[in-house]
């Protein structure tokens, strides 16, 4: 391994770790106003929306591919199957779709 590459990787690691670490060890949110705490606790749902859309429609050059996978996932999740089954089911459905179409 080249030294230059080694230090570059360390540098990338440090700048990735800093934003993940800082709020967790430095923030003292106990006395923050209620609205800011409320907004922070709503972050997961907004992040999930942003992670799903529009990325899901670009998983394949055929737009239907992502939509079909998403639809299967919604159905499986809605009837309450475990995470792993939702993920496996969406992969399975798309595998069948890819093989036959």
């Amino acid at each position, binding site marked *: *391994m*080249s030294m*230059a590459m*080694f*230090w*570059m*990787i360390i*540098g*990338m*690691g440090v*700048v*990735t*770790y800093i*934003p993940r*670490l800082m*709020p*967790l060890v430095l*923030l003292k*949110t106990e006395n923050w106003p*209620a*609205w800011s*705490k*409320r907004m*922070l*606790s*709503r*972050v*997961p*749902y*907004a*992040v*999930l*929306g*942003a*992670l*799903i*859309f*529009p*990325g*899901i429609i670009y*998983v*394949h050059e055929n737009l239907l591919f*992502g939509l079909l*996978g*998403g639809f*299967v*996932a*919604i159905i499986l*999740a809605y009837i*309450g199957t475990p*995470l*792993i089954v*939702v*993920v*496996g*089911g*969406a*992969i399975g459905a798309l595998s069948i779709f*890819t*093989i036959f179409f």
Partner: protein
Amino acid sequence: MENVTDTYENLVISPLKKGLLDGIPIAIGYMPVALTFGLIAGSTGLAVSESVLMSMIVFAGASQYMALSMIAVGSTALEIIAATFIVNFRHLLMSASIHERAEKSSKKMRALYAFGLTDEVFAVASTKTPPIKPGYILGTAIMAYTSWVSFTAVGFFAGAILPWFLQESMAIALYALFIALLIPSIKKEGKIVIILALLGGLFHVFFAIWLSTGWAIMFATIAAVSVYELTERFVLKGDVTE
């Protein structure tokens, strides 16, 4: 002193196992992404040790891919590090949100699980009902990390080991995971979750016009929670106490 053992059992051991289990869908989702990363790293000219070290030290998919493409066009190390910082800056927001939802734990523990706070680990952990057990976050992160690092190595030597139909279909895995996390939250908390997720997705499309994905996700999240808060307070004038 018996309580100490009890507390240890309840707080560390079992949430850790639960986290490891819930990390499996992430591990599956990471598999094709890490395999491809290993494969491209090899063809970009990285040694296997460099590729695996990058996955071990950085543990952030998008920025690792970006580093490869920047190495390919001859960017300097500083440029690549700066770009990595920019792409991963969004985790600041996720870390702050986890801080608000996680059970209190030692600084050492927080520093440990902070390392594993990828988008996916955050998504799985943060949709649990607060207070989230630190051991749970750690377990999820360990499972995701193991997959990420080991499949990077596998991909380096045998990137195309997956049959073609599985390679294409597995691209849906992480999206299916996100949906699987969102639906139970919608069932539990109702339309607030739908509205926030829709706002997040729509603002992502909007910000993606000018910004790269990392920043677009961050600003979309800020915009979504802000619009929701402001609408609730000033338009609906609803009851804003928790």
